Every structure is written in C-alpha cells, then in structure tokens.
C-alpha cells in the first residue's frame, strides 16, 4: 500500500476530489454517502492516529512539540502501522493506494525536518490549486468572517487553522502562510513527486483530470468507473446530499453552515467587489501568473512585474 498526499489550500476542491475517488469504488450502484467516508487516517492533521501510535495525549503538548513528532507518525503510517480506530470501508482503495487529505503547507518542523516526513511519509502528492479569487468568498463563509477578512487571512504569513491554545481543536495546527506561500511551498519542495491539478481544469474535464491523477497515483480504474464516479460525485449531487442529511465534516455541524457551496469556476466575478479583486491580484500576482490565472485589474508596467514572476 502506498500513501499519496491529497494536498491543497482550504476551499480548493480537496473534498470534492476525495468524493470522486470514493465513488470510483461505489459498490452498490449508488453514490457513496458523504457521511460515510470515515477513515480516521484520511486527514493528516487528525489527532487519533498520533495519540494511538505515540501513546501521548496531544492535549498536553504545544503545537510546536506536536509538529516535531508528526513526521514520526507519518513514517509509521506509511510503513503500514494501524491507526487504531478500525480501517475504513472502501478497502479496495486502501489495498493499493492510501490517499491522505491535508491542508498543511509544506513546512519544516522546529527541528528542521519536513513536517510530512519527506519521501518517508508518502510516495507522491496530488496538489490541487484554485483561483484565489474563488477561494476568498468560500473561505469567508467557511470561517464565518467577512470577505475582506478572508482576503487578509490569505495574505497573512502567520495564518493557520486550529492554532488556538486555550481549547483543544479536533485537528492539529495547520500552517497556511499566505495562499501564494502555501502553493509555492508545495511546488518548490523536492522531497516527493507532485501532480498539479487546477480546480478549473478538473471542473472543465473531470474525467480526464481524474484519470491522469489516478495514473500518477498508480491506481488502476476503468473508464467506466471513472465516468460513474464523475456522475456520482457531481457537485449538485454532493450539495443535495448535504442539504438532505448535513455533512459531518463541517466544523460545527450543529450550526447552519454549508460546505458544498457553489463549486463554480469564476463565481468571484459576481461575488467580489473590484477593490477586493484588485487586492487579491496585487497580493498574489506572481503565483497567479505562474499558475495561469488571468489578472483583470490594470497592472504596473511589465518591467516591474518581471521581478515577481521570476520564481
């Protein structure tokens, strides 16, 4: 069994991609229930495998101390250690490839080693990116903040999920040191091979992009299974399941909150103000250009821009 990271900045299509993979093996001709993807190992920042294998209550460790130990846990899991809470139901997937979701940037621990254990933690990473202008509104809803706050979060080098210290969050701290910083941390690392998927390309040609990602991961799937997965994990269907039964992976499932929101490409055009668009494009110009996201606001002369693009 090999481990493949399924990495992305938050609100970039990671969960949709997991739903696509889960539906490749939908056994009974029905879409997989979005609340039955219960593999506790399926997110790298979960506490359970860490505590099961390390024997340590993560609640009495600081965020930095946890980070120092996380590589040990990923190494053990990649070598086949059990995570302690029973294995998940879609064992067909597990037998050959184990996909592990994460939002962490590719960072080093305080001791200077890769948080994700480098090549010992996984054999590769599927890295999903999305137009930051589409992320902003979605992130604002997700964090229950204003869009302006979300834009500021996406440009804050200290930003993180689950950073709190006066309470215990379900997940470990996940560093998100700006949208550009997050993406470049993954694209620039040389520890694990990376397969880049743009959300926009996945939306335009879901079957084709899924097929090439699976080929990268070394997971065999027939064209028929891929077509069916695309149909079963169609965004409207996921949203309908959430409307009918809720989604267990929302942060506060007992509060009104929508996880599968619009999923559209280019929704920012009618959701963001011109000023908000300009801020995002200024903050992330170099990385947006690198990824081929077309800027809309007038820019400085090309000579000045060149510095930013030469990454």
């Amino acid at each position: 069994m090999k481990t493949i990271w399924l990495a992305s900045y938050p609100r970039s299509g990671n969960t949709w991609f997991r739903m696509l993979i889960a539906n490749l093996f939908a056994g009974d001709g029905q879409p997989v229930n979005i609340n039955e993807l219960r593999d506790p190992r399926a997110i790298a920042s979960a506490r359970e495998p860490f505590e099961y294998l390390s024997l340590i209550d993560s609640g009495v460790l600081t965020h930095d101390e946890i980070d120092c130990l996380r590589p040990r846990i990923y190494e053990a899991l990649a070598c086949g250690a059990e995570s302690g809470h029973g294995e998940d139901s879609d064992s067909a997937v597990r037998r050959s490839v184990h996909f592990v979701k994460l939002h962490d940037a590719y960072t080093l621990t305080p001791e200077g080693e890769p948080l994700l254990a480098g090549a010992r933690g996984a054999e590769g990473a599927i890295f999903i990116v999305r137009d930051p202008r589409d992320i902003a509104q979605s992130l604002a809803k997700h964090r229950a903040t204003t869009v302006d706050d979300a834009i500021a979060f996406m440009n804050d080098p200290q930003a993180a999920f689950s950073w709190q210290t006066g309470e215990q969050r379900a997940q470990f701290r996940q560093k998100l040191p700006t949208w550009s910083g997050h993406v470049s941390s993954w694209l620039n690392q040389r520890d694990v091979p990376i397969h880049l998927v743009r959300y926009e390309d996945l939306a335009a040609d879901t079957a084709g992009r899924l097929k090439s990602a699976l080929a990268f991961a070394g997971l065999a799937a027939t064209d028929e299974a891929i077509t069916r997965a695309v149909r079963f994990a169609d965004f409207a269907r996921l949203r309908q399941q959430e409307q009918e039964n809720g989604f267990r992976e929302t942060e506060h499932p007992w509060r009104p909150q929508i996880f599968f929101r619009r999923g559209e490409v280019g929704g920012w055009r009618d959701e963001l103000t011109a000023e908000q668009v300009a801020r995002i494009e200024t903050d992330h110009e170099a990385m947006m250009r690198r990824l081929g996201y077309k800027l809309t606001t007038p820019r400085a002369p090309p000579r000045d821009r060149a510095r930013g693009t030469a990454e």
Partner: protein
Amino acid sequence: MHSYYMAGLSISSEIALPGLLAQGDDGGPSEISIRRDKVDSALNSKRIVGPTWQMSGDQFLLRIPNVARFLVTGGSTVAFETENDTPVEDVAIFLVGTVLGILLHQRGHIALHASAVQVDGKAVLFCGRSRAGKSTMAAALSQRGYPLVTDNLCVVATAAGTPMALPDGGRLRLWAQAIESLDLGTRRSAPVRTHIEKYYVEPPSAACEALPLGAIYVLRETRPPLREGIDQPHATSTPLLLLRHIHLPLLIRKMNREAAHFKAAIEISNAVGIFYLTRNFEFVGMPAVISSLERHWREMGLAERAT
C-alpha cells in the same frame, strides 16, 4: 519524597504529582516508585519499536523529544531524565498520564480511557477519544453535586465478580475555555504544563473508595448522521466498543494482553449498561445534557438522588 495513592496503588515519587491524591508517608514500601535518574536513549536488547517508544521484556522506554525520557520497568519503577533543561513541573503530567498508563498495562490492570463521577454509590463512566468531552462531563456533573471518581483514566477491577471503578482521588484537568464556560475559575490551580492553557481544577467533592460500575457512556459528537441523545448499542457490539476505549489501546496487542482485555470487556458488558451519549460540543447545551442523563439514571433505577 511525595506519597500518593491512585487506583489502589501506593506511589512514592521524587517530584510532586499534582494530579494525584496525596497521602501521608506511612514508611512502608510503595508499590510504585518514581525517581530522577539517568535514562539511556535506547534499550539495548531485543526491541519492539514505536514512534516514541521501545519495549523489551519488562522494560518500556518512552521519549518525548525535548521534554524527557522515561524508563518504566516491571510495573513498579519509573526513572526519568529531562531533556533540554525542562523543569520537572513540566514532566509530571506525562507521569500521571502515559507513564502510569504503561505501568498499569505492565501490571496487568484493565484501564479505560474514561472520566467518572459517583451517582448513588456507583461509578458512572464517560469514555471517549481525545476531545470527546470526558473531563468536561465529569466537571459539569461534579459541579452539580456528583463526586469526582477519576479523570481521564479509570482502572476497572473485575477480580471480585462485580466490576469496580477505582478512584484516582485527584483533580480535573480542563482547558481554559471549559473553566470559563463552566464557571470554575475559583477552583482552578496550576497549569498542567508551563505553556499549556490546561489547568488542574479542584472538584467540589471526590470519591475515595472503589465503586461498583453503574453505567458507561461512550461520548460522541453530533455529526451527521448522529443525532443528539442517549442510545444503546447492540448488545453484541459492546465488548468491542469497550476495547476501543481502553487506555493506550496499542499496548493491548504489543504486550499480548488481548485475552485478558476481551475477558474483562465481556464481564463489564454483562454487568453494566453501556450507552452512547451523543451531544454537541457547545457548553450552552450542558444543562440539557445533564437533565437527560439524570432522567436516564432515574429510568434505570440508578439514582434516587438524581432529581
């Protein structure tokens, strides 16, 4: 030297262990001794190795990087050596948590990852994974007048036929947010570690005697498809459910203790009701959760006083 009593065991320790019930030193030998000493970074004989630990025969070495190394031997002695000048106050919480947990496995005890309170002369246990709200439930109930039996780790003795919960006689460990939300600020004492906003909290009252089990609740969060309330799992599944809530469950297999645990899980399942308690994690809902628990206890005939 400090003397403590936990789960029926006497402990002598070179450093203070604020989580445990202190007792006067009667001069007799303790069952468990904890001392500062040199601890090598590896065991030298045949080893089973985990991410933070090594095991060989009756020796178990645990290393928490930059904090301390602990050598637990034969279910009776613990030696520890701090790393990077970590103050001993920062080590105590690991001694009363993981290290005593390892030692209890070595001694052949059955310990659940649970907190418990006393209800009408019996112990009501709350099991759950990390962050499930074990300490919070025990804190809220102790504030309501139910004495604390134990927090986080509950040793269950099955030898006498009736499963008994053994108290740790100690203190709650609560996050700053829980202390504030449950209005326990006046009972708060030291933080469990220098840089952790989790504190020891003195319960209004604590049980000191072993108590027969009254009920066990496995705590879950209301996430779809789970709904709020108290449910009874199918009787055939309860032994496995209990096994999932053994303290340090990895050691069941690593120490070849499957048979003893399975036997205990069946005995406990036969002797006491095991339920799911599904609740959301917002403190505002706590009074309603306590009301539904008290109603449940009355229905079971458990609690004359649960009114």
